């Protein structure tokens, strides 16, 4: 992947930053000329990963969530990183409907949504060290040309 552009974002672990984070990543990814559907996919996946960092990774609103976004010719790579609690059993965490916070009415569908809406999702995590979710979305310009009005 030859990198064409890159940005890094850091913000406090507060829920009001969820909207900001997805808008910022979408604005950056817009350089690849994605369809509205592709932008919606990216926004949703970013929202899931950022929400997880805020509610699962950290237990207070004064920690830092980091997002790194890289653009190549036809794909965008997004890393959402926290230095929080980390995940004990990544395989279990990725199962549809698994949530450690049912009391918050979490559905356990976050990772499933990321996997459905992005082309690649990799989770790197260690208890006490934090979590990095790396997602890739291919932006298919050939398909786009015909789909777009």
């Amino acid at each position, binding site marked *: 992947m030859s990198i064409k552009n890159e940005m890094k974002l850091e913000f406090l672990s507060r829920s009001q930053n969820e909207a900001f984070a997805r808008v910022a990543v979408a604005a950056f990814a817009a350089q690849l000329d994605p369809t509205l559907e592709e932008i919606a996919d990216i926004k*949703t996946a970013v929202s899931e990963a950022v929400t997880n960092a805020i509610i699962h990774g950290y237990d207070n609103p004064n920690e830092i969530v980091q997002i790194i976004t890289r653009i190549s010719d036809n794909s965008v790579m997004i890393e959402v990183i926290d230095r929080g609690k980390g995940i004990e059993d990544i395989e279990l965490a990725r199962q549809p409907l698994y949530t450690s916070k049912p009391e918050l*009415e979490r*559905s356990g569908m976050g990772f*499933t949504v990321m996997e459905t809406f992005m082309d690649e999702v990799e989770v790197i995590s260690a208890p006490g060290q934090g979590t990095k979710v790396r997602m890739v979305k291919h932006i298919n310009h050939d398909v786009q040309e015909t789909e777009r009005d």
Partner: protein
Amino acid sequence: MNAKEAVDLLMDYDRKKDILIVSLKGELDHHHAAEIREFLDEKLKDPSIRHLILDLQSLHFMDSSGIGVFIGRYKTISKRGGQVCITNISPHLDRMLELSGLYRILKVFDTVKHAVDWIRGESA
């Protein structure tokens, strides 16, 4: 509309006998989930409400936090023997709801009117 409203969640509601109709406008993420949950639970304190219709026509964004909200309200309503319907779903939302298995418990309609008619038919 100002800049903040674009990413805010607004709620509007209507009442047709034992049906509560709530339309959601804007963005439903984890940040707004608490707000909509409180709003709905406050309204559902009224035991004469048996059914719930959620109109999503103007919901421009939703992540899996919304699924949790819908399931939670479904539990309340189904204890009363009522139905939860959702209407006016965008293609993006459709993929999310499909994925979550919500279609097995919620009824989906094109319009609020169709949902109301169906509930009337069911409970007739």
